[in-house]
């Protein structure tokens, strides 16, 4: 009968389709066997020790101790003696049962972290009785230990990876650590090493039976490489100490190499605050702190450089030929054109060298106006842009390329900025005259100022500032840090600037407090006008005058004139570095004891807002 036959044909047809599909899945396609094995694999991860960090003199700054993470495989868990566990790990029994309750619900083979960073002595107690606790095992992890009190802005810190990192980078898994900010972040890949892994196959009872594929996929952990930082730990600690209770930043560079000797951002935080127990609370506290310790001022906070910028304007004038070293100018206490620019009382008239010594505002107003009205350029627009290009050659208004995260570029005025602000053709040299003395539309970080100072000390070039000196085992430091960067100003002009800086410190100039009796310090003060509160005190200096060993820039926020705070602090740093001890203990004490934060109205106002 046709209908019966048809129905039998349909049934047979379906059976044949299913058989073909099964034959394909089970016999022809081998990929499911591999995936099935993957499902049942056990991965034992071996964590490498993170690389150590040394300072430039070989002192250990950061090293590791071994701690243990106690893990639990939920499926292998039997009844747990929480009382004994509580005794071993010295935590509350209820806490333990809470963790176990969370774990117990998921009867999986994926291990759970039961406790983190258990110190070796407690772990020893657990290891003795480990066989009482089936399903529990331990994984050795290393933890950072800080031998020196170096700020977290330089070193950075280490913390557990979050999901955004895991999503972006396949290397990281839940529970891994990663370097955040500072050296720990920028040299993460060097420091972290490589995790090792052993893969085991489970049988149908979930028991690991054998290395998977004969251990072909296994790899040993490779420990992280050690780093030698260019930081001088003694100097760094010393500057941190004298910057106590002051907001600001100090950067010290070795001019001959561009190596950063110290990079202080104050107020400070220490890396240990953001690792291990209490991390969460500390982080919240640091974030809410109105003085913002997490903000790396030294490379992020751009301030008008004030009179220190006269060095740059003077050199540009000389190079452009709109100014000569013999140009002399009479100053009656102010620059009389436009809205006028005030000056302070000093001997008059002044030539180029003395203009730096006494930091004459009028002199630089004339000089800057000449730069902008240079007949070489068809318009003031192009003159400004030419000036801007020269300023950028000194490292202003762009990222220098330091090997640290979150460097900011600062500001250098451009024609677009003024065209937008005043309108095209509606501004002239007088509208922007404040640039001549480093105020207005210009902002530089302490790093950029220190770099500028190093450029002057080197008489025309710098090396990109960097915090790394050496990496172990054939990993090379980025070659860009070994290339001279020229600022395209003739070497001969620098002698006059340096002479001016020398006299500013040693010849009755503005920076007398920076003088050290047997070191030839050259410096330039600056006062950064601050519309939100008291002016910032700025100072750049290098020493010795011949063959400079150190260039320092200091910005002390809300401290007024550059000579009073920034100069002594920078000078103490120079003395500490060059002589390893301080002769002017009275100055040192005064600096340590000055508190510019507690009664600072700038912070009081902010506090009120919160």
């Amino acid at each position: 009968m046709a209908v019966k036959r048809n129905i039998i044909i349909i049934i047979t047809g379906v059976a044949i389709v299913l058989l073909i599909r099964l034959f394909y899945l089970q016999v022809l396609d081998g990929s499911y066997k591999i995936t099935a094995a993957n499902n049942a694999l056990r991965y034992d991860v071996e964590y490498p020790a993170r690389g150590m960090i040394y300072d430039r003199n070989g002192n250990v700054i950061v090293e590791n101790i071994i701690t243990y993470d106690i893990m639990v495989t939920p499926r292998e868990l039997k009844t747990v003696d929480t009382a004994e566990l509580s005794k071993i790990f010295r935590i509350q029994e209820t806490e333990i049962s809470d963790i176990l309750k969370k774990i117990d619900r998921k009867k999986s083979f994926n291990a759970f972290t039961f406790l983190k960073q258990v110190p070796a002595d407690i772990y020893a107690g657990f290891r003795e009785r480990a066989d009482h606790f089936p399903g529990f095992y331990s994984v050795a992890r290393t933890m950072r230990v800080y031998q020196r009190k170096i700020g977290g802005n330089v070193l950075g810190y280490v913390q557990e990876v979050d999901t955004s990192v895991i999503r972006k980078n396949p290397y990281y898994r839940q529970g891994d650590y990663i370097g955040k900010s500072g050296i720990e972040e920028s040299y993460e890949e060097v420091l972290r090493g490589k995790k090792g892994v052993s893969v085991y196959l489970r049988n149908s009872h979930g028991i690991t039976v054998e290395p998977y594929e004969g251990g072909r996929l296994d790899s040993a952990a490779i420990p992280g490489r050690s780093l030698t930082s260019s930081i001088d730990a003694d100097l760094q600690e010393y500057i941190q100490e004298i910057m106590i209770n002051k907001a600001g930043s100090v950067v010290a560079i070795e001019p001959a190499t561009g190596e950063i000797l110290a990079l202080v951002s104050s107020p400070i935080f220490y890396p240990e605050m953001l690792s291990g127990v209490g991390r969460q609370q500390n982080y919240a506290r640091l974030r809410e702190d109105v003085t913002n310790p997490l903000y790396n001022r030294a490379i992020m906070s751009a301030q008008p450089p004030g009179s220190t910028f006269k060095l740059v304007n003077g050199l540009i004038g000389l190079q452009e030929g709109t100014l000569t070293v013999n140009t002399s100018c009479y100053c009656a206490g102010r620059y009389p054109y436009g809205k006028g620019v005030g000056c302070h009382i000093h001997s008059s008239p002044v030539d180029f060298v003395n203009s730096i010594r006494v930091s004459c505002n009028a002199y630089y107003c004339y000089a800057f106006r000449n730069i902008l009205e240079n007949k070489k350029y068809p318009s003031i627009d192009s003159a400004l842009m030419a000036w801007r290009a020269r300023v950028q050659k000194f490292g202003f208004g762009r990222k220098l390329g330091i090997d640290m995260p979150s460097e900011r570029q600062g500001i250098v005025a451009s024609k677009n900025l003024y065209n937008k602000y005043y309108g095209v053709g509606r501004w002239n040299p007088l509208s922007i005259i404040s640039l001549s003395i480093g105020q207005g539309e210009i902002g530089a970080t302490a790093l950029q100022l220190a770099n500028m100072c190093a450029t002057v000390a080197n008489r025309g070039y710098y090396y990109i500032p960097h915090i790394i000196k050496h990496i172990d085992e054939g990993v090379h430091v980025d070659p860009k840090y070994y290339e001279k960067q020229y600022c395209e100003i003739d070497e001969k002009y620098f002698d006059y600037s340096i002479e001016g800086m020398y006299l500013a410190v040693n010849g009755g100039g503005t920076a007398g407090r920076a003088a050290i009796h047997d070191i030839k310090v050259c410096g330039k003060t600056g006062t950064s006008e601050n519309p939100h509160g008291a002016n910032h005190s700025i100072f750049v200096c290098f020493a010795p005058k011949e063959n400079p060993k150190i260039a320092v820039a200091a910005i002390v926020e809300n401290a007024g004139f550059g000579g009073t705070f920034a100069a002594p602090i920078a000078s103490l740093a120079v003395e500490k570095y060059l002589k390893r001890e301080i002769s002017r203990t009275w100055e040192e004490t005064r600096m340590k004891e000055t508190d510019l934060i507690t009664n600072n109205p700038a912070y009081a106002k902010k506090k009120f807002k919160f």
Partner: protein
Amino acid sequence: MQRRNSSSNKIDFLIILIYLMLSVFGLMNIYSTQSDTQEIFDFTKKHGMQLMWMLISFIFATAVLVISSRFYLVFAYHIYIFAIILLILTLLIGIEVKSSKSWLGIGNFRFQPAEFAKLATSLALARLFGQSEFKFKTFKNRLKAIMTISLPTALVLLQRDWGSALVFGSFMFVLYRQGMSGSVLAYIAFTIVLFISTLMAPPDMIYAAITLITIIIAFIDYKDRSVLTKAVLPGLALLGIGIAYNNLSDSNIEYEKIIVATVLMVFVISVIYLLFKRKKIKWAPILFFISSITISYSADYTYNNVLKTHHRDRIEDMLGIKVDIKNAGYNVYQSKIAIGSGGFAGKGFLEGTQTKLNFVPEQSTDFIFCTIGEEWGFIGSAAVIFIYCFLLIRLILIAERQKTVFARTYGYCIVSIIFFHFTINIAMTVGLAPVIGIPLPYMSAGGSSLLSFTLLLFIFLKLDSTNHTGKPWLQY
């Protein structure tokens, strides 16, 4: 005394053997899904429960064999009405499990009335067709048959139990056996294909395909081919003009609209021509075209508005439109891994890592075939398919030898149900059908399912055994 002997002697023991093979093999695999080897009589575990249900099923099976087969004939409608009442009760006081309200609970005891409704509907359908005057020709009778099936289907659908509702659709085979045109079956198959293609292919392609099939149907239907050539050739010309106009002018009418417009125009002209010539009009091609276009057009709507997100995900996963091995596709992905990893000979009893380590969800119930595939390999899975095939064909042969329409129809009912469950369940585990949660007959863990499939089968065996006695009282 003699009668009882004869009845028990005439029972088809080959079917009982297959039944025992399937359920014992099922129990072994359920046992294997449990993570650690355990006591077989542990009634807190799935295999223990299944063993208990097997014993209960045996008792019921024996009872079925003892009760007179006349009982099922006489009470067929009563049982059907009782099942309908249970379904309505489930809607009112049922327990909701996984978004479908399909369980009734009495104390600790739970069961799915939909399982029982399959049995009841089979009996009612058999009874309906068994009436001596009943012929599946008149509209009234067709309506009766369709209503008998539709009522429980609708109630099960209201419980949002899609799987069981689809099972009722399998009664189409019964209607086919009882005289429904094969073209209806073919049209249902075509509808499914059309529905899926609508989701996967652009509409102009689909409409073109429908037009082509319409032309083929027309050629089969009309003896007088001259009419066709008169209609088709101008139609194609018209289509060409439409497409050319569309391309040359700026108007951007979709091709599918041009196709539909052209074909409808050809239809109208042809009908007028035929009326004019006083020839007989065949409506089949026209109906086919219009209904197909409607289905295709509404498929998108149905898909996006009637189906739930998880249904859509499952369908899209099966079709490979959206591969999502974490969520919707997880079950099938893991299921394919388990089955695929079994290889040719399997990993051996209790040696399957995938099933024992709980990678496949629902592995003792709807996904029991994974364990078979993993532990017994292609040999085991092929054997299971072969046994089902053998069972189904044997049941058809038995059905065909029945002397009463009642028994034969009932036989085809259980063939339809078992066939549908078997096909969809295994196709689902190997990724050929979307995940519809229906169990594998006699093998999946679950009391309601095992018991109802047992009753379904043993009632037929009982009917068959009385068939041989040749008692005249069954001749309606």
